């Protein structure tokens, strides 16, 4: 069993990316001429108001949607649809209700033809990592929201992706669980050396987790800004520099 990935993987390059949807016959530009680079092993957070295209960007990276124009490269190769080097953690756990927790984590491995015993071994490893090994034989309906989301995280990690895409993964959790899970994510990220792209509407979460925060403007044609978060981990939410960074992010949205 190989845990984690060698460094130098999961690098993302996006050049001149555009995407529009047609809404009631009108073309709606969601992303226009976006350039982005995420270094291997980095955690990038994407924040923006609703409708700013942050989720669309993540879905394009996941291969669930195709861009209209521009290049999307992962490790130098253009992506075609979904790929085994990428995994997604959704806002909802999206567990299969008829499978036990361990079978849910093993599901993507079984889909990819990993033998049942190896899939179960790997599933156990990642369930231990998220602290749910004791719940292997439980069904999703027996779990709390936070536990179910941790199973979803274990499932994404079990495929040992180079690029982990997180679509508001903690958005549906209560404040306490959310903070615990943010700490968990930091720990997992540092243990697994995986590149992460995180879409969130929670600015504090962005500052807590990310190396860099990409701010998508509300109005199209506005300036896309990135803010570096140069703070040591584990981060202290009450530290002056943390607070200052959060304030400057709030200011990006005209909030104080």
């Amino acid at each position, binding site marked *: 069993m190989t845990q984690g990935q060698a460094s130098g993987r999961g690098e993302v390059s996006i050049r001149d990316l555009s995407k529009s949807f047609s809404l009631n016959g009108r073309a709606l530009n969601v992303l226009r001429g976006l350039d982005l680079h995420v270094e291997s092993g980095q955690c990038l957070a994407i924040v923006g108001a609703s409708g700013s295209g942050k989720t669309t960007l993540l879905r394009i990276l996941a291969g669930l949607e195709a861009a209209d124009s521009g290049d999307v490269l992962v490790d130098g190769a253009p992506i075609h649809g*979904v790929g085994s080097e990428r995994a997604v953690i959704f806002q*909802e756990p999206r567990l299969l209700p008829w499978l036990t927790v361990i079978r849910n984590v093993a599901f993507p491995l079984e*889909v*990819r033809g990993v033998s049942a015993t190896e899939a179960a071994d790997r599933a156990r490893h990642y369930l231990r990592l998220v602290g749910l090994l004791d719940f292997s034989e439980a069904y999703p309906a027996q779990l709390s929201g936070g536990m179910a989301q941790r199973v979803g995280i274990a499932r994404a990690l079990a495929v040992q992706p180079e690029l982990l895409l997180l679509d508001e993964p903690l958005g549906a959790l209560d404040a306490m669980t959310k903070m615990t899970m943010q700490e968990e994510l930091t720990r997992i990220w540092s243990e697994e050396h995986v590149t992460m792209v995180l879409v969130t509407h929670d600015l504090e979460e962005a500052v807590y987790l990310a190396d860099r925060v990409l701010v998508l403007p509300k109005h199209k044609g506005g300036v896309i800004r990135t803010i570096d978060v140069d703070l040591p981990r584990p981060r202290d939410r009450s530290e002056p520099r943390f607070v200052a960074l959060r304030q400057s992010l709030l200011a990006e949205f005209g909030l104080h």
Partner: protein
Amino acid sequence: MSIIESEQSGAFRRSKSDTPFSAGLAEKAVAGLARLGSRYGVLIAFLVFWQVASEAGWLNPAVFPPLDKIISALWNGIAGGFLLDDVAISLQRAGIAFSAAVIIGIPLGLFMGQVKAVEHSLDPILQLFRQTSALALYPVFILLLGLGEASKVFVIFWATLFPTLLATIGGVKQADPKLIEMARVYGASRLTIFRRVVLPGAVPSIFVGLRLSATTALLLLIAAEMIGANSGVGFQVMNAQYNFQIPLMFAAILLLAILGLGANYALERLQGRLCRWNQLSR
């Protein structure tokens, strides 16, 4: 966490309650009786009322014979064997029709639920067929298939097919697109998505259809046997009434109720085994 806590508090309760063993047993018995009473009390009262009312003459005993007469007629019929023959032939008719409906309905439903174009163009004619009473079509089936077993089985099959078929289509169509997308992200093929996401998700809905079909099968069985048969439980109900063997008539009716309950119970058990997960979320 909550599981552990509740277990601990449970153990705490147990250690505190050191009432004598016999008192505990009596308490349990009373609780059990109360539970039984709340569930079956009304049924038992109904049966007692029937018996008493019939014997006391509040009800005409020629129309509503006392229960003991009905039970003894049932026993004589079973011991004499003729009611068993009727049950056997009825079960055969309903069984063949129900099996055919399941064998055709589930695969066809799975296919129609998956392929939108097929469902789209077949739905209107299915709705028309479904809304046409099978019994109204029975004369047509008799013309086509004769008065023998084939027309009886076919009319039951016809009515039984639709609940299973439509429930299967519904179950497939309401598959959660978010789960399908999750499977797609992990590289599942269309077939794998169908086999591992769509199909298991449709099972509870399919069972709703199966139970409805089983009820329909028994309903149509009786109707078909009353109209054109010289054997079967439905025939026996009619025949006993013609001959004014009212206890036997009720015995046959009782037998039908038992068949219906039995079929439903069997399907419920099977559903419980196959969809344990679905009961957890209730």
